[in-house]
């Protein structure tokens, strides 16, 4: 007898919950939690990935769980879209769990057992979000996910700044949740039936589909970090422990992408072309904004958080393009674009988890998050450094690693656009493509800055000489993710074969016959148009490198002498003369000056202890959030006027209210 995959998914969720609950039994026993529970969670993650990978090609399966409120059971469904994201969750989550096994230590904050509980509830909730098949179950899972991650963010809750970051995250998460709830309210179309099945059947009229789409875009955008709701990311990621940052950035942001895809392409029938234009514009501005801000950051986790904003922007821009193609009824192009979107989501999960985990190792080894106080760690922490290099190159979109493949596919989709009937859209495409390639090129700048300042050069502080490389669990996790980045990069045809069923589900077309010429060659539409084979490129580069080395050493010699650095003959060299993070970002700060709110402190010539500091702030704070906060405060103060604190006044209020009610109701 075979067990249906959906039951196995549920079993995985239950297993995660059980592991988490076991952590509560002995919350302060670090050894038990880290050596037994987290590795067990990693195994469950791998199993989930295997089940999801197997079931991605199977027809959708549904089930009803008699949980929840009476008469309101949880509907579950496992289809290709859920399976793809479950695969992402399981594969990336397994590595992060493994890393956590070596990462968490006893600290002042939340005890390890409780962290383990919150962590596994977070994983289980994300998995539950992906299989939920009615709005009620979805919202329950969505909110559990938000709450669990909130508690994880404030693990070090004794620090006021971290509590503040956590609160901000919770606030934005709830604004988003309200929008999603309203979107579901619109989508059920007055039937009162909140199962996704009935939403699929409802055909909305008039302005309602547009309302639903934009509510969903705002709601899921808040979770994903779309402009202008991005502000929680750069606050929450540095506050959270590194595995949690990795999980949130690598996986949780993707649940928002899942939600957006589910609502837009599965629950709704028709898409309007201008939704696509709006999503495209929003996505690209988010991408550009994120990468420009990433370039000027001085905290390594903030830098990565802004880089996540950039990648989410690229993904949403891709979704916008897919909507555009779908609205103009170009199924093949929609399939190519969606493939690029899903591929990039998977890639981002791998390389961003890898980078966040690497920052975790650096943080543990040096107790330092500020880029200005790191440097030269490649000598002290070779494992972390070389694996982070893989992640860096992937994030920079360098062939033949994985970040490049999805960007390549997306650019191909852009180049196909001129076949659209509307000239306005055709005009827009060059601009959109320009913004996309600009942000992709800037990403390389950001990543060189990140890797160069943290791992290369000379140590900027004396205590870095004592940094130790990552432990066994952490190292395995990093190797796993690094290998994932390489494999996803060089075997695109196999990965796309995995994505195919999702296209079939969402738009009813496979892109398969055009995308792959053979297993080596990636060729969307036709090989004459464009083709790319990362494996051959990799083989040729490696071959030329090996051959050149052999030939040069054989024909000439391989002698090497070591000497102090020359540096144009300058005798005095201190590590502080290297570029700092501020210095490396300075050109970007200058070029994109209008983007930032710059706070500069220039010392006067007579200052006995001169200090120069410059900070680039987000303009959205001053332009959007502070006015809203001030408005809310003054409203509260107005409401406070009627609170006199005397019982007679309140009785008068009640009397007046009664009178008014009597007058109106009669």
């Amino acid at each position, binding site marked *: 007898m075979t067990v249906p995959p959906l039951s196995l998914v549920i079993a995985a969720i239950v297993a995660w919950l059980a592991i988490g609950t076991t952590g509560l039994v002995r919350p302060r026993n670090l050894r038990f939690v880290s050596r037994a529970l987290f590795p067990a969670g990693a195994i469950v993650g791998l199993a989930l990935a295997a089940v999801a990978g197997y079931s991605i090609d199977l027809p959708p399966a549904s089930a009803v769980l008699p949980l929840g409120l009476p008469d309101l059971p949880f509907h579950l469904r496992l289809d290709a879209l859920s399976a793809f994201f479950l695969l992402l969750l399981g594969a990336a989550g397994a590595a992060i769990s493994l890393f956590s096994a070596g990462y968490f230590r006893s600290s002042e904050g939340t005890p390890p057992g409780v962290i383990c509980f919150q962590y596994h509830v977070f994983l289980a909730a994300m998995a539950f979000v992906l299989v939920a098949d009615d709005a009620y179950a979805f919202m329950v899972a969505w909110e559990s996910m938000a709450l669990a991650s909130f508690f994880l963010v404030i693990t070090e809750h004794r620090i006021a700044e971290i509590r503040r970051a956590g609160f901000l995250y919770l606030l934005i998460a709830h604004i988003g949740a309200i929008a999603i709830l309203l979107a579901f309210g619109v989508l059920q179309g007055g039937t009162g039936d909140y199962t996704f099945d009935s939403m699929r059947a409802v055909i909305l009229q008039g302005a309602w589909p547009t309302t639903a789409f934009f509510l969903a875009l705002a709601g899921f955008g808040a979770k994903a970090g779309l402009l202008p709701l991005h502000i929680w990311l750069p606050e929450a990621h540095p506050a959270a422990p590194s595995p949690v940052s990795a999980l949130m950035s690598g996986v949780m942001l993707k649940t928002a992408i899942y939600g957006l895809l589910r609502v837009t392409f599965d629950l709704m029938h028709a898409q309007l072309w201008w939704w696509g234009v709006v999503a495209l514009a929003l996505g690209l501005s988010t991408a550009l904004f994120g990468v420009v801000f990433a370039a000027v950051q001085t905290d390594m986790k903030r830098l990565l958080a802004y880089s996540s904003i950039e990648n989410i922007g690229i993904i949403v821009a891709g979704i916008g393009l897919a909507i555009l193609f779908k609205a103009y009824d170009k199924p093949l192009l929609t399939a190519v674009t969606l493939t690029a979107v899903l591929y990039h989501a998977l890639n981002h999960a791998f390389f961003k988890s890898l980078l966040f985990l690497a920052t975790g190792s650096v943080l543990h080894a040096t107790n330092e998050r500020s880029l200005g106080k790191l440097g*030269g760690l*490649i*000598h002290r922490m070779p494992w972390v450094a070389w694996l982070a*290099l893989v992640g860096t*190159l992937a994030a*920079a*979109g*360098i*062939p033949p690693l994985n970040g490049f493949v999805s960007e390549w596919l997306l*650019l191909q989709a*852009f*180049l196909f656009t001129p076949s659209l009937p509307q000239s306005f859209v*055709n*005009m827009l*495409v*060059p601009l959109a*493509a*320009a913004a996309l*390639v*600009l942000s992709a*090129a*800037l990403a*390389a*700048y950001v*990543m*060189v800055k990140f890797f*160069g*300042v943290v791992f*290369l*050069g000379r140590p900027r502080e004396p205590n870095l000489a004592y940094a130790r490389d990552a432990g066994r669990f952490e190292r395995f996790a990093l190797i796993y993710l690094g290998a994932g980045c390489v494999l996803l990069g060089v075997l695109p045809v196999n990965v796309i074969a995995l994505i195919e069923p999702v296209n079939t589900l969402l738009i009813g077309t496979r892109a398969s016959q055009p995308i792959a010429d053979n297993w080596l*060659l990636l060729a969307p539409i036709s090989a004459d*148009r*464009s083709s*790319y*084979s990362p494996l*051959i*490129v990799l083989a*040729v*580069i490696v071959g*030329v*490198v090996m051959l*050149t*080395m052999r030939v*040069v050493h054989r*024909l*000439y010699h391989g*002698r*090497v*002498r*070591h*000497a102090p*650095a*020359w540096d144009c003959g*300058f005798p005095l060299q201190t590590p502080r*003369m*290297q*570029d700092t993070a501020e210095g490396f970002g*300075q*050109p970007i700060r*200058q070029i994109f000056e209008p983007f930032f709110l710059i706070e500069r402190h220039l010392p006067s010539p007579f200052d006995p202890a001169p200090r120069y500091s410059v900070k680039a702030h987000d303009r959205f704070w001053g332009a959007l959030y502070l006015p809203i906060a001030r408005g809310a405060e003054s409203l509260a103060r107005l409401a406070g006027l009627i609170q006199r604190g005397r019982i007679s006044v309140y009785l008068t209020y009640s009397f007046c209210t009664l009178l008014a009610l009597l007058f109106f109701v009669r």
Partner: protein
Amino acid sequence: MSAAGIASQLLQFAIALALAPLLVGWVNQCRAWLQNKSAPSLFLPYFTIRKLFVKDAVVAEGASAIFRTTPYIVFGAMCCAAAIVPSLATDLPFARAADAIALVGLFALARVFIALAAMDIGTAFGSLGARREMLVGFLAEPALLMVLFTASLISGSTSLPTIVDTFAHRDLAIYPSLAFAGVAFTMVSLAENARIPVDNPATHLELTMIHEAMVLEYSARHLALIEWAAALKLFNYSCIGLALFFPWGIAAAEDGWLALLGAAPVLIVKLALGGFLLAVIETLSAKMRIFRAPEFLGTAFLLAVLAMLVNQMLGS
């Protein structure tokens, strides 16, 4: 994959490797003539590379493996690029493995590694050079991509051989979009190859250098490979330019062996003219301050975007 294809692939690769230093020597010679100096030998780059290979490599203390492998990786990436760009023939089996976008990716690979190697030692000049190189790169790379996009929109393909085939066989008409793209491409090539308005290949004046600042610490065989790779980069860019804007004379798949042999002299003549033009540009313009480079490259980027827009508007 035909025998002729493999032959043309190998021949083209060999010619690129062999001729790239000659192109650099030719540009230097033309520049010397134009500036009324006595010119060095045409073959000086070969002598330099040979001399460097013979010497003992000096590696700075505190250099990691990145520093020592980067010359090979950069050289490998440039060789890979030389195999893709159709300079002699369009019947290139390897070109299917990487199209125009992947070509730009290969250039980015080389750039990122050389920037990382420059930061590896931890000297002030190294990181300065890396920062400036990435600054030039982040504007030049999109501009180059937009130029290639314009060409691929016209030809309906991002594969360079297909682009060249379409361009070589079309009627001799004026494409306004290609005019914009050509200007943008020239500007980008100047910047990417560390040529005069943006960088000066002959300078070691600290405040102005970009490329030289990054490779300051290299010596002997490492430097030889980097110089050779830089020559290959110039060669590749010249060939991209020739392929996009002057594609005549490149042998097509069906033309046979004779056309392949005929293509080589044509290529050499075109490269000689292109090199002379480069020397003229370098002689006529002055090196601009580094802060002006973003403006220069921003102009190139906007011109390239304009090229694509014009292409969309006029359909040509």
